[in-house]
């Protein structure tokens, strides 16, 4: 897959002196769903805002489908749709008017059939004549998405699209994202619901302190940095880990009734059989066992925490 967005050596320091981005290098591939994760204030929104033209870039270059965002801003911006984090809407306008306005603003001639399709896809058709101020928060969020899609963009930025959104709308939204991806639209999203990123994203980038810490395929990242746990429910409680098993990463929990074995998800797969054999040799019996893989959220917290500790 070729790159549709190329960010190279991008830094941004605001007039206040706050440095939001430090030498960011990030390439987004055409047609992928990319999740940008990071704690509050990490630089996610600044990064998105620079690519979309809302914030002036500092040093470095950004190209969108080969078009420089400064020199060739028309071609670059015309390819992008943005759903910002804040619910910023024209309260007194109707849904139809505001979505049609967005299409015109991005240089596209009126196309009522397309606008109708977008509104229907987002379950907004029945609300098309309603003023935005009369809509619920969830409906307003749908309107923001409809506005971003009004000019048929190749790239869609979703900045915290599911913040404050109910379960049903969240499910609808992800169905829409999947549908867009199938049509070839590249999607870059930020979210605090990391399980969503884990489920949806092809690749994940973690940003912290204005720097990209890691960019990886979601699955690869979880394999590389994820850990697994094997929990054994014991027939008889143990006070401590037996000395003969001290070389293994074992812990006793649940008042001695649970033996927990933590291991690297990628490297130590073969040791489970060895562990079970050695438990048998020690006369330790177990009634049940289960494994648990660390989630993307665990990995994210580890990465950001490790970074924070490392910086100190």
């Amino acid at each position, binding site marked *: 897959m070729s790159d549709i967005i190329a960010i190279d050596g991008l830094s941004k320091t*605001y*007039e206040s002196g706050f440095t939001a981005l430090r030498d960011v290098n990030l390439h987004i591939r055409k047609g992928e769903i990319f999740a940008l994760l990071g704690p509050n204030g990490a630089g996610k929104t600044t990064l998105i805002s620079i690519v*979309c*033209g*809302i*914030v*002036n870039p500092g040093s470095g270059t950004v190209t969108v489908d080969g078009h420089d965002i400064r020199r060739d*801003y*028309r*071609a*670059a*911006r*015309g390819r*992008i749709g*943005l759903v*910002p984090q*804040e619910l*910023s*809407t*024209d*309260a*007194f*306008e109707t849904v139809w*008017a505001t979505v*049609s*306005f*967005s*299409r*015109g*603003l*991005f*240089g*596209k*001639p009126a196309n009522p059939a397309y606008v109708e399709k977008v509104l229907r896809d987002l379950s907004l058709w029945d609300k098309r004549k309603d003023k935005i101020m009369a809509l619920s928060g969830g409906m307003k969020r749908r309107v923001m998405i409809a*506005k971003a899609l009004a000019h048929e963009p190749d790239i869609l930025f979703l900045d915290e699209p599911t913040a404050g959104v109910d379960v049903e709308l969240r499910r609808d939204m992800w169905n829409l994202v999947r549908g867009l991806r199938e049509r070839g639209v590249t999607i870059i999203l930020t979210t605090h619901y990391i399980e969503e990123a884990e489920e949806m994203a092809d690749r994940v980038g973690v940003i912290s302190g204005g720097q990209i810490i890691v960019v990886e395929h979601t699955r690869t990242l979880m394999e590389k940095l994820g850990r697994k746990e094997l929990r054994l429910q014991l027939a008889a409680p143990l006070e401590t880990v037996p000395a003969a098993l001290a070389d293994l990463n074992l812990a006793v929990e649940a008042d001695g009734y649970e033996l927990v074995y933590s291991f690297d998800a990628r490297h130590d797969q073969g040791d489970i059989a060895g562990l079970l054999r050695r438990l048998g040799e020690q006369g330790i019996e177990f009634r049940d066992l289960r494994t648990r893989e660390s989630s993307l959220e665990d990995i994210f917290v580890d990465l950001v925490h490790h970074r924070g500790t490392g910086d100190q």
Partner: protein
Amino acid sequence: MNLHGVKAIYLFEMARTWRTLLQSIASPVISTSLYFVVFGSAIGSRMVEIDGISYGAFIIPGLIMLMLLNESISNASFGIYMPKFTGTIYEVLSAPISPLEIVLGYVGAAASKSIILGLLILATSRLFVDFSIAHPFAMVGFLMLTAVTFSLFGFIIGVWADGFEKLQIIPMMIVTPLTFLGGTFYSVNMLPPLWQTVTLFNPVVYLVSGFRWSFYGVADVHLAVSLGMTLLFMLLCVGLITWIFKTGYRLRT
């Protein structure tokens, strides 16, 4: 050129006018009509003629200018300030639209509204006062030039303002006093010599004088000077707006 973008902004702004017809059109027409009733018909009938023109007719160009200036500034400043206030400015900033096209959309709509209002007030004033227009094309030209110039000025105020108070402060504290003291209700020649000189520092004098010339063929200052000063102010506004977009002042951080 993104003509669809210009059209979208223009129509969006004009839609606001039609949506708030009472506030946008009826209110300024009614308040200016009151001036005609009080100063034109009631008090004006007891006043002497100025430069051979009845007082009621004399104040018409000045009153239209007073409304034109206030409405142009108010429409344009509100037009760009509201998206900043509500946050919807993100869409304009992220659109493939140039600064010139943004200004054409917002300022074009603000000036259009003011010109429509100016013509409506002109028609209304005919109900109260008898007058004729000596140079109708020059009158329309002055009307358009003033509307565009002060809409550009309003756009600057709208970008500069970071609260509703600032949005009102320049029109209320500077523009309105300058308009009242700019020869709307009197001829500059009626002032003592010292104040005649002082008043020449008031840019509104040139606007009112030029506009009045287009009605009655008489002016306080030479027509070329009026035109020159208006164009100079327009160029100053264009220069400031160019700087705003170049630096991103209060639009892009």
